[in-house]
């Protein structure tokens, strides 16, 4: 499985998909967007920080594990750091596979694992 993991401090601009094989039949994209209300209060955005080398290593490990269970061809993972204003994308994930089943399963599990084990934190405000 080809994987690309990036952390960026700029707005996320997802690159156009470049399918590595003509056998790819499913391409799934997820965007996490910063919402305006946090516990009922309006916020300007969220501030994200990460322990980047460990976060990258954890994601590589998680993807290797999930890819064994749900064979996919490509995963692109991009997480924005620092201040992300309301309405902008904080997380972008693209998963491509031959059939939809593994891509849908891997995407769901990857996001659950991100929220449980990958050292990235957010707080309201700048």
């Amino acid at each position, binding site marked *: 499985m080809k994987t690309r993991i990036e952390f960026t401090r700029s707005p996320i601009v997802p690159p156009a998909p470049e399918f590595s094989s003509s056998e790819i039949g499913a391409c799934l994209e997820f965007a*996490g967007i910063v919402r305006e209300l946090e516990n009922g209060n309006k916020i300007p955005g969220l501030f*994200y*920080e*990460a*322990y980047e*080398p*460990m*976060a990258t*290593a954890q994601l590589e490990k998680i993807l290797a594990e999930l890819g064994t269970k749900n064979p996919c061809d490509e995963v692109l993972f991009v*997480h924005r750091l620092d201040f992300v204003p309301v309405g902008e994308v*904080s*997380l972008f994930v693209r998963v491509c596979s031959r059939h939809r089943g593994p891509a849908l399963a891997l995407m769901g599990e990857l*996001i659950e694992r*991100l*929220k*449980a*084990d*990958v*050292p*990235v*934190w*957010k*707080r309201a405000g700048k």
Partner: protein
Amino acid sequence: MKITVLTFAQTRTQLGFAEKSFECEPTETPREIFRRLAPHFDPGKTVRVAVNQEYADWDRPVGEATELALIPPVSGG
């Protein structure tokens, strides 16, 4: 030996530093190191510890590790 201690999110606020170099012994555990470094800090059950960028046991000696990090509950995405 010297070990670099890193803190993130709320643990950074609680301990008052982001990174600190600290003298320790290979036989010391992360719990013992933090007890000396910040006697009033209690990781409770929610703060995990990472040794050389891998989740580790609070009570296992750090050995020849060079980096120790406090990992409060994560919230990416």
